[in-house]
């Protein structure tokens, strides 16, 4: 449980910066190896929350709105 919580706090918010590190050739997570067991799950969660959910859901809503203009008229 401990390693998961540590990773939620440290990688979730700034995963994009870790990507920049990697692009610059700085490898690793910056954490002791024993703390990094759940990295994949948390890394995924960050990108889902930040970049996937708002974009996918709102583009879907836009497409829905175009198909149902009658439902978007003033009452």
């Amino acid at each position, binding site marked *: 449980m401990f390693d998961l919580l*540590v990773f939620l706090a440290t990688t979730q918010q700034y995963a994009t910066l870790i990507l920049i590190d990697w692009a610059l050739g700085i490898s690793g997570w910056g954490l002791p190896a024993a703390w990094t067991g759940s990295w994949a799950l948390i890394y995924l969660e960050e990108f889902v929350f930040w970049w996937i959910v708002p974009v996918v859901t*709102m583009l879907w809503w836009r497409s829905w709105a175009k198909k149902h203009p009658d439902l978007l008229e003033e009452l």
Partner: protein
Amino acid sequence: MVFPLIGQRPELPGGTLIEAGIIVFWILLVLGVGFWSRSRIKGSGEFMVGGRAIPVWMLGMWSAGAAVSAWAFFGLPGGIYASGAWQHWGICTPMIVGFPITVLILGRWMRIAGRKYNLMTMPDFLGEVYGGRLIRIFAAIGIVIACVFYSTAQFAAIGVLLGTLFGLPYVPAAALGIGITIVYVLLGGFIAGAIINAFNVSMMIVASLIAVGIGYTWTGGYVNMVNTIATSAVGNAHMNIDAVLGGNGWGFWVSWALLLSSFGLVGQPAIVQKLYGIKKPSTLWLWGLLGGIIFGITCPAYCYLGEVTRYLTLVGQAPNIPAVFGSADYVIAWLTVYKLGAEQPIIGGLLIAGVIGAAWSTIDGFLMMGGAAIARDIINKCFRPNWTDKQLLRNLRLTMVVVGAIIIIETMFPADLITWLAAIGWAQFASTLAPALILGVLWKGVTKWGGTAGVFVGMFTAAFLTLVFRLPKTSTPLGLGTAGFLATFKLDAGGWGMLLGFITIIIVSLITKKERGPLYYDIHKAVSVQAAPAPQAAAP
């Protein structure tokens, strides 16, 4: 670098004059827009919702700025510096999805019903869905309570920052911040707010990108920063969420990520009431997208500065902030005024403008909302329905001044770290309003008394637990009060409020008469009705 002795503040660097010049220019710009907007206010419709003709991108930016607020740009970096990133983990990131959730659940109905029912506030919406006066009154009381906590956090941030920059005592500096906001809100209302916050949020985005860039440069990369903190003497305590929260990390996550931050955003009037002002209902998707993305860019950027400053302290490039300044709330003030004031004052000035813009983007909404809760939701809608529009507009402005005065008085007695004042306000909004709003749209089984009881229970539970059990315990900073509360109650105060709000609405609705307001029958057209009541207000 030589740091002063504990409790002795360093002298201001010369570059603060440049920073102060940038802020004075920013203040004059904001006041100028307020005066310009004054001539466009013809009645309460323009004042409260901008005549329902504001471009969606402006409102998306304003809503994102209101969500970020000085809480994320000022309070949260202090909290992260003091005790680790766990608040960001549970509270901040889940708010990003709150914007699309709001559009998917509530957005369409708020916008397309606005003109027919003359909706301007959240209690308006609840009153038309559920019917009756009591639900409006309970919702308005919850809003006023939350306004005081949340706005106090914003003024406290401005007081600390302007006080440090201009060398003013805390109270006059905070009063200067509220004075500027009151002037432009009273003059230009919703229209001034939309324009000013397009500027404010643009500045917040610029400042955020700068913040990430300089933070990354100072620390030599993210991996190096985390590694330095993790392997230091404070590393374990700083990074172990469960330890900080007394073994209740997941209780915190359920309270905030699952309930208050994500679905609770639906109940944040300062953010969601903006939907009434959108010009075209079909553009709501852009509000959700802009809100989520702008929040996702700006909020974590300043939070990152909390970690960066912690790193700088560990490597001897920054003082121990609480020891020198008396509170971790001074993290951003030290970083912008002292460090950047000496090294890069123009960047420092832009970062300060970003924080003040974040605070204003929230304060103006709260002043309007708190004033409207008293003048419109309680007095006008429940007891003085015959007011003319001119009388309503005058009384809206008057009650906004009253709410501003209450907030100024409370600002003089800050009870906690800024981050917790704002979090308590957010939780109070969410627990009072979100359950009734969500169920009112999604479940056709709701009734007048179910909604009324749910709003009351949510409002009362959050306020009672906070005022009786939580605030007295939070006299010690660094989040120890939160850990103590979670150890006792397992969920945060607002988490219980929201959960019990949902349960109450369902149970009471199942056992009470199927009586509802007129908007309910528009939303749930499939429900058979013999005589749906007519709207209470005609379209303006």
